[in-house]
């Protein structure tokens, strides 16, 4: 699973990374060539404004992957910080966890939409808006690992040996959170890509002329019967990307926790 998922994901990433080198301008409109069927020059045809659907799909995937990776990075960092504080410091634990519970009960997409609508659309705001609802589950996960690890004899030994709390956290506790965090990162990445697509689909993502898989589907949906590829090309691209990320995550989980593999 690691290889299938990783392989497909690598292909999608490489295609997205080198997009400007091999596709046409995704913004370029041609009013005389709207809703064209696929051809050798334009593999997925053109949309209602005569833009190259293949170029837009590849550029849309670029945006999806950027959002996915940025959200993973920011969620992992903030989740790690909050989780370690909550897990290590009994005093903060209950307060932090109640705040996380509250944050968890606000539906992800509504929260993100409200943030985007108020702060205005833009890539960095989009990333923050998708990150905030993701933090509670990551913080919870890190906290649970920290809670179990800090009772281990080697942590006690380090503390008895005179090591200070920051050093114990850094040397003995943090490394233990990495495997769980890596598996979680794949989940976060998949759900961030889906949330970004959902937000763009609802009109609360990046501005409409910038190609994103979600807003492509949204702007082409009226032409579903005439030119199904304008909807399905970005849709399938999105699904394959998310599937690859999920497979990679499942594979990583089996790698880090072989006990689960036997049971499944």
């Amino acid at each position: 699973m690691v290889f299938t998922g990783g392989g497909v994901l690598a292909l999608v990433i490489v295609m997205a990374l080198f997009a400007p080198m091999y596709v046409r301008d995704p913004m370029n409109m041609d009013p005389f060539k709207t809703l064209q069927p696929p051809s050798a020059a334009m593999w997925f045809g053109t949309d209602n404004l005569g833009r190259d659907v293949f170029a837009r799909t590849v550029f849309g995937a670029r945006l999806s992957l950027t959002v996915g990776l940025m959200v993973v990075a920011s969620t992992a960092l903030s989740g790690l910080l909050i989780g370690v504080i909550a897990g290590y410091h009994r005093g903060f634990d209950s307060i932090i966890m109640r705040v996380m519970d509250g944050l968890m009960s606000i539906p992800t997409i509504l929260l993100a939409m409200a943030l985007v609508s108020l702060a205005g659309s833009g890539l960095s705001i989009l990333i923050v808006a998708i990150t905030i609802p993701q933090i509670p589950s990551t913080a919870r996960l890190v906290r649970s690992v920290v809670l179990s690890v800090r009772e281990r004899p080697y942590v006690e030994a380090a503390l008895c040996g005179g090591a200070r709390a920051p050093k114990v956290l850094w040397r003995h506790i943090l490394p233990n959170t990495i495997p769980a965090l890596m598996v979680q990162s794949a989940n976060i990445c998949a759900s961030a890509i889906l949330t970004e697509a959902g937000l763009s689909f609802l009109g609360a993502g990046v501005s409409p002329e910038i190609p994103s898989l979600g807003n492509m589907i949204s702007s082409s949906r009226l032409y579903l019967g005439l030119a199904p590829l304008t909807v399905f090309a970005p849709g399938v691209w999105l699904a394959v990307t998310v599937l690859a990320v999920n497979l990679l995550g499942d594979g990583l989980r089996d790698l880090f926790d072989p006990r689960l593999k036997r049971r499944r």
Partner: protein
Amino acid sequence: MGGYVCRRLISAIGVMAVVGVFIFLLLRLVPGDAAAMMAGNNATPQEVAGIREQLGLNEPLTVQFVQWALGILSGNLGSSIFAGLPVLTLVSQRIEPTISLSILTMIVSVTGGICFGIFAAWRAGGFVDRMLTAFSAVGYSVPVFVVGYFLTYCFSLGTRWLPVQGYVSIGQGLAPWFVHLVLPTVALSLSYIAFIARITRASMLEVLSEDYMRTAAAKGASTYAMLFHYALKNAAAPILTVIGLSFAYLIGGVVITETVFNLPGIGRLVVDAINNRDYPVIQGVLILVSGLYVLINLAVDLAYRLVDPRIRY
């Protein structure tokens, strides 16, 4: 039990307080002037000032919060700036499609997911089990709007068996109501069936390997009795948790599904409110939906005891 219910209720109230503070601060702390955003680009400074006055943004933060919280406690969620109607009225006008879609989706995904999960666990490694693995990989990865347009393309535009979009109130007849909800329900259910089936399978597998299951088999219990009477009851707690949790995701899915199939529900209300920057509506619906989520999870926690009398609080 009584003590547990009390403690659980208090913690639910605490969570709601956090939600309230968070949603309140959202409007005030986000960069950009909410009043100017709401008024639009062509508004005069007087109009912006008017909206600011109407929202009470000129008062100190604590005063604003107390007023707002007192309003919510007395059942006043504020009024829409755009429509001029109270948020609760707007919500009650739009609640029927959303409730219909949510209930149908829950029925389909809970029955479908549990049955699928039980059969996969019963014949672990068999055909159904491998089907489930493939199905859940797809269910987790394909977003509801892609599934929705795919179904529309196949069953509405292609074969013309089902309506493309729209909603017919249940008051106008059960059959047209149901026909309009088939595709939205199927599209939305896919990922929940996968989600519930995966957990059911894992939970059932654990129970099926218990000693008492072997005893039941040895004394000649039928397959049906073993799976549904002995195993499912013992495997129920995690399944219930997942059903409670999936409600939170359901709301997000409902918003998108309503947009795909053009159902005039709460989801459309929020999307329209967000496009119009009608903040009281966004704020009111967020509070309502989060409150519902907290209540459902409270109910799930209390229901554990019903399905598993061994649980003592």
